[in-house]
């Protein structure tokens, strides 16, 4: 019996994940040709490496098809309902940092905080006959945040890419998106609300509660010991 570890299949996220495990004595590597998504694990027994798109790892964890997975904490929180019931957070990994923020046009001199946004949303709805539109792909996180903060008179519009351009294109009045340096925001004449930090994301190692752990317990115990982590409570 082996347990399956899902990691991002390409790019910096994959390299950093490999580095993180290597720094703890576990070698992950791709095998076969450059284009083949196959991998191997050395330094820990009973672990099978599965290379996946980072965006699919939350779903695979939720279904239990992989036992462990590395992906952004923002993706898990946004894609999984009741995420703590579905996965256990084993370790924040210290890379892949990105902030999910709310940004508004920089020309809105009267808006710096959520309180301002709420007041403007109300006036906007009265003037324009529809709610103030916020473009995002992080629907759950943004909706939960604004509801918790008591902001009213907004609606979400789906934007899967080039979200910073939606305000200029008149398809949204504000955006909620991830940013690391804020440069794209500035280039698109947007500014971040001072209290609009929704989530500070980083790459995180998760364990799937729905996975079959009956025979994988020992492997998990050995792996977490090797990585210097406490053994997780999975039920």
């Amino acid at each position, binding site marked *: 019996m082996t347990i399956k570890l899902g990691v991002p299949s390409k790019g910096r996220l994959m390299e950093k994940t490999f580095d993180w495990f290597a720094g703890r004595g576990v070698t992950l590597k791709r095998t076969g040709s450059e284009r083949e998504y196959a991998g191997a694990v050395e330094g820990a027994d009973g672990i099978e490496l599965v290379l996946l798109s980072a965006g699919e790892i939350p779903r695979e964890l939720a279904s239990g098809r992989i036992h462990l997975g590395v992906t952004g904490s923002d993706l898990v929180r946004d894609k999984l*309902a*009741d995420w703590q*019931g579905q996965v256990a957070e084993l370790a924040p990994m210290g890379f892949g940092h990105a902030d999910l923020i709310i940004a508004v*046009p*920089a*020309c*809105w*001199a*009267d808006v*710096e*905080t959520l*309180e301002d946004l*709420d*007041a*403007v949303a*109300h*006036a*906007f709805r009265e*003037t*324009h006959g*529809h*709610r103030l539109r916020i473009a995002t792909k992080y629907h*759950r996180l943004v*909706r939960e945040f*604004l*509801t*918790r*903060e*008591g*902001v*009213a*008179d*907004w*609606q*979400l519009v789906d934007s899967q890419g080039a979200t910073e351009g939606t*305000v*200029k294109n*008149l398809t949204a*009045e504000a955006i909620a998106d991830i940013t690391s340096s804020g440069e794209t925001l500035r280039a698109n*004449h947007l*500014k971040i609300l*001072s209290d609009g930090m929704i989530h500070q994301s980083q790459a995180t190692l998760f364990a799937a509660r729905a996975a079959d752990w009956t025979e994988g317990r020992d492997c998990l115990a050995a792996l977490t010991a090797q990585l210097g982590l406490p053994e997780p409570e999975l039920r």
Partner: protein
Amino acid sequence: MATKAQARETGERLLGAFLRAGAVEVTPDMLQPAGTLLDLYGEDIRARAYVTSDPLRGEMMLRPDFTVPVVEAQMAEGAEPARYCYMGEVFRRQDHRGAARASEYLQAGYEVFDRTDPVTADAEVFSLFARLLAHLRLKATIGDIGILRAAVDGIDTIAPRKAALARHIWRPRRFHRLMTRYAGLEPVPPHRAALLAGEAANGAPWIGLRGPAEMRARIEVLRQDAEAAPIPAEVVAQFDALFSLACPAHEAPARLRALSMPALNMAIDRLERRLAAMAARSIDTSDLMFEASHGRTSMEYYDGFVFTFSAADPALPPIASGGRYDALTRQLGGGREIPAVGGVIRPGVVADLEAGA
């Protein structure tokens, strides 16, 4: 757990009682246009309802409740006064697991549209529900959003502040923050001071649908706000006391008067008349809880009397709930309005309790 057949049988029994009380049965479609619901409830409803698409009618929702289609039907063609009842499935998306969080369940409801005497209509709905649920020995709680609205309206401050507070009665956290700000208990953020001092121009090009005139209008409101006197600390304390008031219903009028908020007088008189109308229908108002904040965190359309019947087991959802929603009829009425009150019972939970009793 009661089977679906048992739940439906219980629902039919409740529906029969509503019909005997003089209501006409309505059977709204399960698929409702999403636009109306989204406009009324905002994104909240998208998180709670199943959205689907129709090739010709666009975005549709599996009905999350009956209130909106019933009100729409009444506003479109209804005679007055009118009493409606219904029984059928509602659908709610659930983001958290738990036995109490069914995503599909029956609701049996009763709604009264009558402008002659609202407090009597309130008492009619409540006492009908109390009678139908009496054998389950539930805990009943009532509240009155009208009292909270009167309290906000009575604050001696500028109109925009009162409007902002009234808008957030249903969002306690934002309400509290605004109140703190208006009372001067929280410093004005530096950006706002700079803005009012005329130092905020940042040279950014104007983008987006919101126009510069809209910003100037808001800055004018902020200027007016900055010049207004702070709401006195004793008023903030009165609101804290009001929001935390919970007592047996028959004591509520005296307890509310003791808050020394003269703006509440009319609303307290109305509460007293409602309690008298309930007592006249054999409701023991000492066996009933009044909570001033009741209904503040539920759906925004209740704007007067609110009530809930709940079981001793906190894991169970409310067995029945309802209230007055005059403003909703105005929003959906296209210029018309009519006082409206109603509520729903969950036959499935009633059947569970009856099976366990």
